[in-house]
């Protein structure tokens, strides 16, 4: 009889001990008004230790060949996690062939890169590291280098219960990227939070955005249909876009519809950064674009007046979320405790 009591007693003891030692690692992702819940893979649910590790890696230049370039070199928070180069320089000043896109709400994206060759945020991480025009490090080498840093080993064990490897690298950076949620722009306050903050010009611009077909492609809470379109930017595309992945002629010149959130901060525009300002973008769309067999029928001459163009630009600027770009939690000096 006595024995039984002892066994029960020690169980109680074990449990009480555990409770005291385990700190709360759960991460509560903010879900702004009007946003759906984010789909997060089961093997990479968010925790504080995962996000902290991913953030550290995102800002770490040692992931590049000569330790000069990090993810944050091209994806800068003050510019909505994009930058203001037409083409961003990588190691040795090498230039790729596309403009850096924003990472605003990237956790809601369904397919990655402008030509859609990558199916998950985790797999996307491998590209910039290995890309000769970005960080130029064979991924196995990058992993060996980072795994030799004791701090990363410890953080990997804490976050994923395994030594630092490709799984940890890709999972952690993706976890951090999923926290980059922006949903408190003037637009959100007006439309989702029911506050009366739009000026007359912004209100007109919003109406034009809906009436002129912009919202057919830049649709939903994140201003993208996650699909690919040819908007008639060129008669002859040197960058063939989606066709690069599918090899289908019918995909030539099609690019993923970009979100328009924080678009004011991410100039220049389009896949090649060829349009310098939002005014130039609206001027271009107003013409109805160049002739191309794959051009979407939604791109038509808009016959906008000068003041209508200004209204449309004013509306696009309501998508800027200053709380997001100033949120210190997304920066390298903040640690989730």
């Amino acid at each position, binding site marked *: 009889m006595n024995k039984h009591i002892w066994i029960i007693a020690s169980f109680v003891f074990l449990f009480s001990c555990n409770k005291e030692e385990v700190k709360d690692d759960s991460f509560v992702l903010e879900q702004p008004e009007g946003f759906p819940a984010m789909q997060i893979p089961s093997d990479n649910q968010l925790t504080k230790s995962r996000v902290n590790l991913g953030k550290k890696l995102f800002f770490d230049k040692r992931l590049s060949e000569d330790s000069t370039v990090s993810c944050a070199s091209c994806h800068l928070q003050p510019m909505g996690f994009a930058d203001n180069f037409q083409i961003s320089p990588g190691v040795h000043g090498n230039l790729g062939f596309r403009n850096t896109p924003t990472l605003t709400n990237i956790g809601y994206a369904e397919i990655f890169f402008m030509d859609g060759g990558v*199916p*998950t945020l985790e*797999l996307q991480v491998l590209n910039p*590291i290995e890309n000769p025009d970005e960080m130029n490090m064979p991924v196995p080498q990058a992993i060996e280098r980072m795994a030799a840093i004791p701090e990363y080993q410890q953080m990997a064990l804490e976050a994923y219960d395994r030594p630092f490897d490709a799984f940890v690298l890709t999972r952690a950076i993706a976890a951090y990227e999923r926290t980059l949620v922006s949903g408190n722009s003037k637009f959100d306050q007006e439309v989702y939070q029911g506050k009366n903050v739009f000026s007359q010009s912004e209100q007109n611009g919003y109406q034009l955005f809906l009436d002129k077909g912009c919202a057919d492609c830049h649709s939903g809470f994140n201003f993208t249909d996650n699909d690919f379109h040819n908007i008639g930017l060129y008669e002859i595309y040197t960058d063939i876009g989606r066709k690069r992945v599918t090899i289908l002629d019918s995909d030539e010149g099609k690019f993923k519809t970009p979100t328009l959130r924080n678009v004011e901060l991410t100039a220049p525009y389009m896949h090649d950064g060829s349009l310098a300002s939002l005014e130039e973008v609206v001027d271009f769309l107003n013409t109805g674009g160049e002739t191309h067999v794959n051009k979407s029928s939604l791109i038509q001459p808009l016959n906008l007046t000068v003041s209508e163009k200004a209204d449309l630009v004013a509306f696009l600027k309501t998508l800027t979320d200053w709380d997001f770009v100033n949120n210190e939690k997304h920066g390298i000096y903040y640690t989730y405790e």
Partner: protein
Amino acid sequence: MKKQAFKLLFFGSIVTLALAQYSCKKEGCLDSTANNYNWDAEKDNGSCSYDATLVVEVNPKFNGVDISFDSTYMYAQGYLIQFSTIRFYTTYAKVGNGGTYTNANSVAQFNYANSNVLFSDLVTPGSYDELTFDIGVDSVRNHADPSTYDSDHPLSTMSSGGMYWTWNSGYRFVVIEGRFDSNGDQVIDMNDTPFAYHLGLDPYLRTNTASVSMNLVEEMTTVVSYELNMERFFMNATDTLDMVANPTIHMNPGQEVIGEMLTDNFNASLVLE
């Protein structure tokens, strides 16, 4: 009272169980290294069976001699070439007997820089008349996440270094790299143009089938050797690849015709020795 009864029942059942075990001693294979090891058997009845080992080797050759990365070779178009990388994937290797197949290997990566062994795997013993595998990675595993494999798995991020397309998630099925004597000085050095033939994409998976009579015997190793004829890789009955005009093929749009030719050539160049 109740406690007593419970105790009796408890010990009673233990005794019964033990007796039951002794009275009908189970027979089976008692060797834990065998295929049919029976963990609850107590008497060996001589039924243990074991796998055979099948080793598949690949010997890359040019003009009939084994390729060395230190040597140069005269290309069909009259200039010297030198190889630096010969790698490829095979999946679903099977041995066949009259059209019935037995699995031999799930996935293997050949990397001539490391060894000339494609795979060494356990196979059910028997007589076979065919060896077949796909060159490349099947569409399911081609788009799976390489970071989820153990690092020594052929498809893992670590082992697939240089064999993975990061902008279009999937593996390169075949990678052949080197340089050709582009300046015509009869030596190959850093001044010469590199060539890189990276073949892949789902529609370009090819099945290689060879007739070979093999008798795979329990606990014995059988070696099957292929030749990879690299002259054949660059040419078919009607065309020879012009390296000067096409030093790199990455299966980009516009490269379909050459990409497909090289894919089919590669399959045809891999033949039994």
